């Protein structure tokens, strides 16, 4: 009895402490923390891709001339069988590059209709002070655009599931049609089910 009592007390103490974990809670986490909740494409994969692409682009001579070339993001095709918001990946790349101050991005492929509509309004409506009205014919032409794709290879056997992602991004010179820069990021994620349960 003397031996059992301390162990029992420890067990009861542990149950009380762990019992605090029995209710579901919601709390804020750090967006910088890695996650491996599932083997599907996730936030950490997005961050890994953006980090590799940005580091690579910032190292390329094109962005090191001091002349701040103008570019836009065309499209990143999702060739996987998952829903992946490829725009969120390219948005992250674009925001980080813009913050570096070494590149400019054109908004023409995203909001060109809105810009033209606004310029027509400012010029023709008669409501806007002509001294401040923006007129058509002054947009800066882009020098480059980015395009790419994400693919995946999935394999499963027994308790193991293996998923391989490959993200490829290219920078095209609009004047010459040449691909001046390209890089890729490979990610492998593995899921192993437990022997019991799962």
């Amino acid at each position, binding site marked *: 009895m003397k031996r059992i009592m*301390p*162990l029992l007390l*420890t067990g009861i103490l542990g149950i009380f402490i762990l019992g605090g974990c029995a209710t579901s809670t919601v709390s804020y986490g750090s967006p910088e*923390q890695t*996650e*491996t*909740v599932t083997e599907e494409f996730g936030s950490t994969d997005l961050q890994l891709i953006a980090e590799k692409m940005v580091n690579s682009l910032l190292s390329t001579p094109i*962005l*090191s*001339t001091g002349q701040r070339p103008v570019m836009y993001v065309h499209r990143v095709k999702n060739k996987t069988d998952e829903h992946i918001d490829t725009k969120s990946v390219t948005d992250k790349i674009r925001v980080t590059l813009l913050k570096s101050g070494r590149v400019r991005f054109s908004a023409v492929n995203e909001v060109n209709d809105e810009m033209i509509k606004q310029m027509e309004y400012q010029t023709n409506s008669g409501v806007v002070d002509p001294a401040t009205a923006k007129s058509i014919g002054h947009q800066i032409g882009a020098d480059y655009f980015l395009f790419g794709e994400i693919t995946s290879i999935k394999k499963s056997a027994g308790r193991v599931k293996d998923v391989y992602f490959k993200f490829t991004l290219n920078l095209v010179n609009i004047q010459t049609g040449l691909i001046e820069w390209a890089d890729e990021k490979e990610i492998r994620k593995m899921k192993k089910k437990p022997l019991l349960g799962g």
Partner: protein
Amino acid sequence: MKTFKIGIAVLALFFAACTTMAPNVLHVQAGPGGLSSKKVDINDKSLAKKLTFGEVSIRPLELGSSMEAQVIIQNNSRRDVSFEYRFIWYDSNGFEISAMTSWIPGHLSGMEARGYRSTAPGPNAVSFKCEIKKSHPITESGS
């Protein structure tokens, strides 16, 4: 009494496994010729026994627009080690200028050493720190 102490020790180990330690940090100051100074802060001694910072290399990019840094991380154990790392860049006033500070998963095979690189976000970067910590992702059972 002995059993009680063992029970408390087991509970303590359980909770220790659930907590995260502060990262081990390599502080690097860049100079005109490249590396100027470096300093290491060890916050996680058990991680420091497995992973150590090795050689640091800095090279300027074209026209002095920025610089690129590489830090060698060495796995001193015979087993594979998973960890997380990140680079944070600073300007001359000590302001953090990195646009991306997410933790990046890393993996080294037993006794492997590999270079991990980062490009400074702009020409005003003068120093950086490279942080490494034990892998602690959010999993299906929570963090």
